[in-house]
């Protein structure tokens, strides 16, 4: 599968990663993880993950978000535009305590000091 999984934008030194799939599930999570990690391989320490196009995410997609957080090595990550299904996943797994969750991209960027 060679389909692109993310759209990448930069806001200053913040990488904004937007998955372009409606389902971030086990079938695409490894490719998403690989692309997202490549996007921050330049040593970036601040990342926003904008989930506005993601209607459904499973534990594999969530695991990929954890991989990004770990790759930042103590840097900061915010997640925004999580829909009701993704919000349910974050609560069930208690990952809502781990990620900085903001309603929209502007708030997420502000959270990271932009």
């Amino acid at each position, binding site marked *: 599968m060679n389909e692109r999984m993310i759209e990448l934008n930069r806001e200053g030194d913040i990488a904004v990663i937007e998955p372009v799939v409606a*389902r971030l599930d*086990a079938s695409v999570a490894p490719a998403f993880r690989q692309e997202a990690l490549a996007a921050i391989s330049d040593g970036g320490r601040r990342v926003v993950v904008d989930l506005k196009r993601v209607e459904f995410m*499973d*534990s594999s997609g969530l695991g990929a978000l954890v991989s990004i957080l*770990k790759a930042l090595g103590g840097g900061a990550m915010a997640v925004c535009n999580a829909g009701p*299904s993704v919000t*349910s*996943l974050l609560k069930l797994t208690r990952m809502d305590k781990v990620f900085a969750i903001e309603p929209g991209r502007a708030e997420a960027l502000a959270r990271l000091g932009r």
Partner: protein
Amino acid sequence: MRAPFIRETVIDVPPRLDALSEFAADLHAQLQALLPAGLEEIEGHAIELALWEALTNIARHGYREAPEGAWLRITWRERPGAVEVDVQDAGSPIPANVLREKSSTPERDPDDLDALPESGMGLAIIHAAFDEVQYATAEGVNTLRLVKRLPTTP
């Protein structure tokens, strides 16, 4: 004696990860039609997510993506005051230690990055989404039985 079911719906599911993903929209539509009134929206999302986790776990670990003669089935039963869902397959059973160790979601410490899981969250999601979770293997068939109790109306 168990209470009789009101309605039973069987959904046969493709047992491969790639085919499962293609089947996801169909499964979503069927579950939307089956979810009983009275459940909160977030509970409906949780049930769909938990079933998805069960199915992908079976495709990946039970059948290891080599499903010669494999099959995978959801049986959805409406019972008085509850929904009961069986997920059945004939792949390798979930090991007992995994069933034991992955049955709950630990508290998360955002400062302890090493402790955060990148995988293996599926069973805990299933436990969090349903009120009862049972697992048994008989005559080569694994049955994951999930029960969601419905709110009682005053």
